């Protein structure tokens, strides 16, 4: 009887976190890449489609004429193509996993941030917003992100993508060291 209860409690607790091996997940993403290349001719990527969608948000800010005549958006206009639907799929899949595994939870300030910078939601939101600006500007300048350059470009042994990986990790290590240095 006691053992039965233990098993049930154990299972419930286990369901609250995910036990998938990161190697299994990585192999899954690798195999997904095979399908993306051979089945769709469109490697995994996020930020190209993200910029197309961003043009929608730019309309109320800089006006529809300015968006229409912008040379960057002329080269990649808003269209509901493969990349944009792929983008829509990402939160759907993550949501499904979070619900099934019981890992969905509201997070305003993550633990690592709280330990270093305290519980202020405002402070965290400002940092996330500024970080978001910098990361997307960098991604567009480099021509891709962790997915498009890091994984899709890395697996093609592209020179551009390995340069991206090296510089991105080196800078990240340096900034992280500065940011999390004990004051």
């Amino acid at each position: 009887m006691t053992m039965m209860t233990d098993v049930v409690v154990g299972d419930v607790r286990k369901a609250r976190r995910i036990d998938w091996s990161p190697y299994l997940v990585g192999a899954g993403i690798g195999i997904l890449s095979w399908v993306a290349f051979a089945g769709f001719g469109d490697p995994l990527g996020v930020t190209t489609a993200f910029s197309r969608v961003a043009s929608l948000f730019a309309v109320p800010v800089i006006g529809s004429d300015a968006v229409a005549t912008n040379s960057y958006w002329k080269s990649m206009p808003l269209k509901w193509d493969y990349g944009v639907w792929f983008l829509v799929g990402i939160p759907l899949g993550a949501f499904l996993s979070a619900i099934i595994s019981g890992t969905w939870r509201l997070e305003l300030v993550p633990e690592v941030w709280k330990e270093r910078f305290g519980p202020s939601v405002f402070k965290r939101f400002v940092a996330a917003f500024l970080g978001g600006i910098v990361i997307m500007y960098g991604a567009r300048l480099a021509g891709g992100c962790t997915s498009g350059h890091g994984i899709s470009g890395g697996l093609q042994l592209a020179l551009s993508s390995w340069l991206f990986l090296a510089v991105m990790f080196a800078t990240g290590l340096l900034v992280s060291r500065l940011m999390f240095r004990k004051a």
Partner: protein
Amino acid sequence: MTSVMSIAGPLLMGAVFGYLLQQGKVTSCNVIENQFRLRDFTVLKVMGTAIVVGGIGVLLLVDTGNTKYYVKDANMVAVALGAALFGVGMVVYGYCPGTALGAIASGSVHAAVGAFGMIVGAILYALSFDWVKAHILNVWALGKVRLPDITGVPDGIWFAALAIGAGAFFLWVESSEAKARRTRAG
């Protein structure tokens, strides 16, 4: 039928990708920050395995004529500058663009706030594009080159080296992590 597949196909691909990111815990800001602090190697484990497994498969698919390469331009200065900004942004934000989209769907409000920042970043890039194109993108631009092209070392050797290097590195990481767990437990 074709039009249904042209939506359902990428939607399903994205959903599988998002599902895997969440299952792999890389939609967690803590996991990403701790990778850069060298306290948690989940991000490198996922990316390294994806590159080796994906790369060997794609190499075979290219060799058998089932796909081609989609290599991004090696605009060396732009890529280096962009990657440096990306590294800064990733540590401050705590996510990369893809994992952020997954994190928003699993309840991270600050990831959603950062996504508005990403929209601003994309708009700023579009507004500065003419200048960037004229002054940065064209500097030291080597085109769509691959490491085997510029080194003369064939693909097979690259992947053998990558697989062995990643394997050895991950074995070392796993044994250090096991040691740390034993120390904590005992």
